[in-house]
């Protein structure tokens, strides 16, 4: 494919599912995030890279941390941010996704970050031809939440491998346990796919009623006994019990759930010394996690929020930074990660 600089329109890349990322794509995103994380320590926490680009946060579902995280990430890269939430917009008057998308297109959105209660809405937006920009899935129904999985993998790599020593490396051989409401969790789904891609061994622990149908086709193991899995886990990821989706009797009482699948101080004591406790937030203290665990040094919940900004900066940069996205393209557009190619091109093109 012949591409002249600036002549042809950008080919948009999208981030819809963690399954679309190859191991190299994922490691590139983590490495880029590692460099961008250092921007947070500077006096001026801003880079000029996406000046003049517009990122629309299109949120059809309530969210604080994901929206704020994407907003902070876009602003740190100097992009213009437009926040669009369904409440108080024309969507509450009955506007369809298509018409909303066409409106955004007319306003010149370079990227649309979408959260939607319907699984598949971001895919529809990316493949319908309604908009030209990049589409980033910020959580769709019970399907996927790829940037959350990326920031979890980033947090894991920093804690288990090391921030500097982790560059270029994956999570080969690490044992990650995901506990809780897997059925309703897009976070779990994306994490299973991404962590598997990165070489980790994932075990799901949940009451049988909260394990989705078809889980045997997922690249992970399933257990119903938390105490048996804990001693062999490098990290335990506690999922939020999603009260808003508990419209059927999935478990007898909250107390019973908490006793069998909640993480408390005693259980944490049985985990290996180096292991960490993760939670995507918001936490239900006393339900899936006790305050003692949530406030301990091993709990990475706050760290995950900070890492979320770095990961989202990396995703936005890799999708919008050049004339072709660096991830999730079929062929040509891969960034040149091998150092020789990179330095060669720099020396010749641009000194």
């Amino acid at each position, binding site marked *: 494919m012949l591409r002249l600089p600036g002549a042809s329109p950008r080919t948009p890349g999208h981030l819809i599912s963690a399954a679309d990322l190859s191991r190299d794509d994922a490691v590139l995103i983590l490495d880029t995030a590692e460099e961008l994380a250092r921007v947070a320590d500077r006096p001026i926490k801003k880079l*000029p890279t996406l000046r003049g680009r517009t990122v629309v946060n299109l949120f059809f579902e309530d969210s604080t941390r994901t929206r704020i995280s994407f907003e902070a990430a876009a602003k740190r890269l100097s992009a213009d941010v437009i926040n669009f939430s369904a409440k108080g917009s024309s969507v509450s008057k009955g506007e369809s996704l298509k018409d909303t998308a066409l409106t955004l297109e007319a306003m010149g959105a370079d990227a649309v970050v979408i959260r939607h209660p319907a699984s598949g809405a971001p895919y529809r937006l990316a493949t319908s031809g309604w908009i030209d920009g990049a589409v980033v899935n910020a959580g769709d129904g019970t399907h996927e939440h790829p940037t959350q999985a990326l920031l979890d993998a980033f947090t894991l790599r920093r804690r288990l491998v090391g921030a500097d020593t982790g560059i270029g490396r994956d999570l080969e051989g690490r044992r990650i346990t995901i506990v809780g409401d897997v059925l309703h969790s897009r976070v779990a789904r994306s994490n299973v796919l991404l962590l598997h891609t990165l070489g980790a061994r994932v075990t799901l622990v949940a009451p049988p009623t909260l394990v989705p149908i078809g889980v045997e086709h997922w690249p992970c193991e399933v257990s119903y006994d938390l105490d048996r899995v804990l001693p062999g886990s490098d990290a335990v990821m506690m999922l939020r019990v999603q009260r808003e989706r508990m419209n059927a009797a999935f478990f007898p009482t909250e107390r019973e759930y908490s006793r069998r699948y909640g993480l408390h101080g005693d259980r944490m004591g049985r985990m290996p010394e180096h292991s960490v406790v993760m939670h995507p937030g918001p936490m239900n203290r006393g339900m899936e996690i006790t305050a003692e665990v949530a406030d301990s040094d091993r709990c990475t919940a706050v760290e995950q929020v900070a890492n979320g900004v770095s990961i989202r900066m990396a995703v936005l940069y890799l999708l919008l930074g050049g004339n072709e996205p660096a991830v999730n393209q079929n062929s040509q557009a891969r960034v040149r990660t091998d150092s020789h190619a990179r330095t060669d091109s720099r020396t010749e093109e641009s*000194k």
Partner: protein
Amino acid sequence: MDTGTTDSPADSPGAARPVLEAPDIARALTRIAHEIVERAKGADDVVLLGIPTRGVYLARRLAEKLAGITGRPVPVGSLDITMYRDDLRLRPTRALARTDIPGDGVDGRLVVLVDDVLFSGRTIRAALDALGDLGRPRAVQLAVLVDRGHRELPIRADYVGKNIPTSLRETVKVQLAEEDGRDTVLLGLQRPAASGEQ
């Protein structure tokens, strides 16, 4: 850029002619180190920042030589300019390199930027922007191993290892032991624009 098949001898890497060898590079760096000490009157507040990839190795070598001359360790770091480039939108997204600023920062210090080849000057323009976001140095100077001319911006180097007049059809390639296994500067001919990118 160098991965395509080559069909004429002028295009092959073998046709590239070495213009500087390892001893020349070592001598040039020693001279630059002495010049820095002379101009900075002792190099008390000098911070060396290399521009990835090869500028970083050159900065480390310069720091060693400066420490040898002054008897004090000289802070050395790296400054990635990718996010500040003016041609980001013209090509596929680039991977980032490490920015590593020494502990005491750059405020009030004499920052010497170090790069391998000075060509259009656009890299240095980007480096100055990047530096501006990191602090306010007392002064900024530029040291390069090779100045090949063809500036597109009003930028010049304070310390030059060697001036190599080139034509735009020629390429200058610096190889350093840390990255390429040997120290040399090669002067070659550009491949015809087969990639379609330039």
